């Protein structure tokens, strides 16, 4: 093999590696970071009296009114952020599982159980949390969507 061909092969390999890394970052951004940020935006500006927005009255003062219209669509305000959180968590765990727990059949079931547990645990502490069956459905759909997009071969 000539040195020219070798150089070409090294360049191609490095190109593939860069592309692969970019793809991973894109996936992390799209499936983990973005849903979390979208959910957080709804919590920050559309919901009142949660730890996340306790100290940003100045923001709420200006943006809350624009979210009042959304109040009519309570699913968007109360269930969509939970769906985003569930989807983001499921995706993060699927990415972890793909690298460290591949071939373990029960791994997706563990993730589903974790997501559902995060909802049903709210039944035990009714003064702090609000249990909602729509959230349970949202968790299930978030799991399914994340499984189809991130884990299924």
């Amino acid at each position, binding site marked *: 093999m000539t040195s020219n061909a070798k150089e070409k092969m090294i360049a191609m390999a490095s190109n593939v590696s860069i592309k692969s890394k970019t793809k991973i970052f894109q996936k992390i951004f799209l499936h983990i970071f973005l849903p*979390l940020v979208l959910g*957080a935006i709804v*919590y920050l500006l559309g*919901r009142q*009296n*949660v*730890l*996340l927005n*306790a100290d940003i009255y100045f923001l709420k003062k200006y943006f809350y009114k624009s979210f009042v219209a959304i109040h009519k669509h309570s699913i968007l305000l109360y269930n969509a*952020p939970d769906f985003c*959180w569930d989807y*983001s*968590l499921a995706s*993060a*765990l699927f990415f*972890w599982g793909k*690298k*460290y727990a591949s071939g373990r059949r029960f791994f997706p079931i563990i993730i589903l159980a974790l997501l559902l547990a*995060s909802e049903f645990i709210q039944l035990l502490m009714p*003064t*702090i*949390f609000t249990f909602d069956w729509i959230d349970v459905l949202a968790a299930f759909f978030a799991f399914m969507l994340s499984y189809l997009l991130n884990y299924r071969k």
Partner: protein
Amino acid sequence: MKKSFFLLLGILSFYAITFIATEPVVKPCNGDCANYERLRTYFLKDSNTIYGVQWCGRQLPYDSLCVYIKDTTRKDWNALADSVCMISTNFNLPKRHVFVINNLGTAPDTLVKESCP
């Protein structure tokens, strides 16, 4: 310990924090707290005279209501204190004393101290 374990622990911890961060800060307001909120709303709504109502007193649980006024031109503060006594009883918040306070100046000025019947 493996790197993968710490990564998993990090992921779960991060999501646990975000889970807790989206829960309500304040405990539900029931009983006296709810009655007090109703009373406060009642007084502040469309009022040109009152700008604040607060539980007050020297010891817990507070046995008095402090009414802060913003219109110093009105003179009959005893009548206002009487009304506050009566209305707070109607809201299931009987109080022993009502203070009418003007703190628009440099220091708070108690205009009336009324003992409720």
